[in-house]
């Protein structure tokens, strides 16, 4: 095995194990913490793929902002009480069927993935020469400007929606 395979193998196995830990913990704060470890592993995988910018953003956005928000809400609601209750919702048979169907889809496409597709113009050398920050910025603001802006409008709608829902009604 090459060093790269060991590296990828470590991250792939660890991420699977940690994901299972996230959903199986009884204490919600522990779940959040395992998720944090999962995000760090994802960032490591991005680094392995020469995507340093994505790795940093993964940590800043998910670990730094979103998980803190999760923790804050969980702590505020003090979910410790709910540890002993039955942990599955009553619609669990539907979820089980969906999960099995999803697994079937995944297995059926396994053989059809091209492992090494033909390289496009953005080779690793080219990205390293330019810096990944520069490359992503260029592509995002020229070639994919429209989808990018649509995504930001979508987020704005979500923010406005949250504010409207949270606002007290004035009689």
């Amino acid at each position, binding site marked *: 095995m090459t060093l790269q395979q060991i590296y990828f193998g470590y991250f792939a196995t660890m991420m699977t194990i940690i994901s299972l830990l996230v959903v199986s913990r009884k204490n919600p704060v522990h779940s959040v913490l395992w998720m944090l470890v999962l995000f760090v592993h994802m960032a490591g995988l991005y680094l392995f793929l020469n995507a340093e910018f994505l790795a940093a953003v993964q940590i800043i956005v998910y670990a730094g902002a979103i998980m803190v928000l999760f923790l804050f809400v969980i*702590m505020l609601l003090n979910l410790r009480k709910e540890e002993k209750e039955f942990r599955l919702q009553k619609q669990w048979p539907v979820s089980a069927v969906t999960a099995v169907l999803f697994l079937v889809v995944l297995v059926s496409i396994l053989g059809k993935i091209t492992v090494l597709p033909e390289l496009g113009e953005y080779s690793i050398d080219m990205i390293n020469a330019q810096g*990944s920050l520069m490359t992503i910025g260029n592509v995002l603001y020229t070639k994919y400007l429209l989808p990018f802006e649509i995504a930001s409008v979508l987020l704005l709608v979500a923010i406005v929606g949250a504010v409207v829902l949270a606002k007290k009604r004035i009689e």
Partner: protein
Amino acid sequence: MSAAEMIGIFIETLIVVSILMLHVSYVVYFERKVIGHMQCRMGPMRVGWHGLLQPIADAIKLFFKEDIIPSQADKPIFYVAPLIGVLAALGSVAVIPMWEGFSIANLNIGILYILALSSVGSYAVILGGWASNSKYSFLGGLRSAAQVISYEIAMGLSLVGVMLMSGSANLSDIVHAQAGHWFIFTQPVAFFVFVIAIFAETNRVPFDMPEAETELVAGYATEYSGIRFGLFFMAEYAGMFVMSAFAVTCFLGGWSGPAFLPGFVWFILKVYAFIFLYFWIRATLPRYRYDQLMGLGWKLFIPLALANVVFTALMKIL
């Protein structure tokens, strides 16, 4: 990368970290002296000449004190929390350029790396507060969580101005881009927002809400004792060092200065001037009220930093 290179980097890291630790222990002494004199006291005087050996005595005391763990505490998290803080603070030092051509890792995403680690560092306070299973610690942790959400956005946005001016997120390039004039003069608004954000980030007065001795005993650190408390302390002061060095690199021209002193000396002098500012403010200002701090972050600093980004970008185009 060959084995020899890796050993070289390892030794480099070891030297930088040990020098930093020495500075961290003496910066506590520096703080007690500065604040003492500002309040017309002498500060530590008993151990050694003018109390010079005080930090060593403190360190020995912390090492040998009993390590008490509250009975209902969440033990693994209680153990890990202070370590996260120390690791995040020490890890950030790797990308800071200390003189021309020297930083342990010259990353292209230096700014983002430090932002990422500082957001991981805040978990130390949140988790330490939660795992202690005590009202005061818990309140401290919650406050820290809310504080992080409101301040990190403004901090990141203020640095966008710096990135726009220098055209890079590499800290060495940012220092080179300040050859003509420091960014504190061209980006005063960003500097203002950034300095206040790093005060909140390092939990220092006037934003030391998670600790707040007068209302929360010692906040998140209430239940910690012995060396674990020492680690929290270390993380706080190492964090101050890193953030000061970060501010110096981004706004005060890093290692650059008149040629009669070497770059490293200029860098250290600027960092200590910045740390003095921390102490000066601690001796001057009272603590902010909690809701006022949140309002300040969301309603003033984020819009201000955003306006600064728009203005800088427009200036850059014109």
